[in-house]
């Protein structure tokens, strides 16, 4: 007996099976494994918070074989970790061409060594623009999921019903819901980690404090300057008030982080400062934030 429901069921199961060919189990913490996704040939992406060891990480491939994986790098701010796996037979997951809207069906696809591919179904419950994580990273979109994620689902693929990746599933970035780390954000982080082994963030080398200006605008007053830091080299002085970075006004330190996130170290940033009440333009070439990468 066939009906609409069993046709829908068959098509969901087929989608899961197809996507499952790009999804692995990641063994990088005690007790629960997590999941990972072939994002590029030989490159697996998983959720950084599920990676608790740096050596002797293994992954269970879609075929069931358990192989060694090297941690290329990780970015706690966006919860992305990149592993290199010696396997070229698994094709990377195709990316969704369009941003999902609230209400679209979504599946979280994971894998465990014992039971193979696994899936949960739900909807995308909210989508908004760029969002800063509580670890200070920037996601291109905030994609909240109304589907059940389990400890082992983090790092797995969030796909639409066509089997295209919306992003990487994580329980590590929100206390109230599972999120998808958007595919475009994952791409950006993977690029940086493959190029440098980590995600370097731009750095100005100044201490800033938000201030209200007489014209009711806001800015950030320079309270300290690191000797020979990027700000110092560009000629910033203590007492300067930064009002714009990269052409966008800055009201608080959050805006500065956003301006720096979109530009890696060594990028010249057009800067507007008030010095003695006079608007002055200068260019700061960002450095790299020391320590804690």
């Amino acid at each position: 007996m066939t009906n609409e429901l069993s046709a829908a069921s068959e098509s969901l199961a087929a989608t899961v099976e197809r996507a499952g060919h790009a999804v692995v189990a990641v063994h990088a913490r005690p007790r629960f494994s997590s999941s990972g996704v072939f994002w590029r040939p030989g490159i697996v992406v998983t959720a950084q918070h599920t990676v608790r060891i740096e050596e002797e990480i293994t992954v269970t491939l879609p075929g069931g074989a358990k192989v060694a994986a090297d941690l290329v790098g990780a970015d706690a701010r966006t919860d992305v970790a990149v592993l290199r796996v010696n396997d070229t037979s698994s094709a990377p997951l195709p990316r969704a061409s369009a941003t999902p809207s609230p209400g679209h069906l979504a599946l979280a696809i994971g894998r465990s060594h014992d039971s193979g591919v696994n899936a949960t179904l739900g909807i995308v419950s909210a989508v908004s623009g760029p969002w800063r994580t509580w670890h200070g990273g920037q996601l291109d979109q905030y994609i909240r999921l109304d589907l059940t994620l389990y400890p082992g689902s983090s790092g797995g693929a969030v796909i639409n019903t066509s089997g295209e990746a919306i992003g990487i599933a994580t329980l590590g970035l929100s206390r109230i819901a599972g999120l998808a780390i958007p595919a475009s954000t994952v791409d950006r982080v993977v690029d940086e980690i493959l190029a440098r082994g980590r995600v370097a963030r731009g750095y100005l080398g100044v201490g800033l404090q938000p201030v209200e200006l007489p014209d009711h605008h806001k800015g950030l007053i320079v309270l300290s300057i690191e000797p020979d830091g990027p700000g110092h080299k560009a000629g910033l002085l203590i007492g300067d008030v930064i009002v714009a970075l990269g052409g966008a006004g800055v009201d608080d330190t959050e805006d500065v982080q956003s301006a720096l996130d979109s530009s890696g170290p060594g990028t010249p940033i057009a800067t507007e400062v008030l010095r003695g009440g006079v608007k002055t333009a200068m260019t700061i070439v960002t450095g790299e934030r020391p320590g804690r990468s």
Partner: protein
Amino acid sequence: MRALGEISERLRRSTAQVSTRSGKAGGSGIVWSSDGLILTNAHVARALASVTLWDGRVFDATVVARDTRRDLASLRIAATGLEAARAGDSSSLRAGELVIAAGNPMGFIGALSTGVVHSVGPVAELGGESWIRTDVRLAPGNSGGPLANARGEVVGINTAILNRLGVALPVSRAHEFLLHGPRPSLGVTLRPLPFGLMILELEADGAAAAASLRSRDVLLHSLDELNRSLDGVREVVRLRFVRGGSDRVREVAVRLRSRAEAA
């Protein structure tokens, strides 16, 4: 979808409420044959009194067979012309398939919930056998009730909730049970610990109770190991265990009832 309504209604009519002697709803059951055979979990059929059908009729039930290891029990009620469930094929289930659970969670009679198959395979906590895990929201009271596929065929028996996932026995194990009867058992409820299996409860007339094992004793065996020795040819199984937090490992010989007697 019209299909979902029809399938759900049929499934609801093949789902029974299984109540315990104290009058509380113990769980759910599946109407397995039109002449009154009801299938449920062994842990639901512990102190059994009655079975309530979808139309409100209540019947006294007798336990035909109970298999604590498979967590299955068959009951008989004196009724005919029932709407029996149709059994499906649990071996061909795939992750992502739509499933429907019917049962009596927390006293709601004939409640339905839907979801997808999360995975099919062994569950670390439950030994080496295959289980169906689903993202269907289950609650106590769903135990023993049917898990059906998109065609409305019963593919599993909802048995537990583990790490928020519903865990169902594949219907193939119910066929085995109904065909061959219960497997030899210790007559205990076990909780897996990192180093063994703790006895939570003993059945008064069970093999473990007869061998003087007590509740809170910890058997120093894995579930798979235990299952292998229970299914072996020997009638006497030697078990190592610790008692009362002591380091001393004791040993006990448990005499099992033979397969023929048990069936």
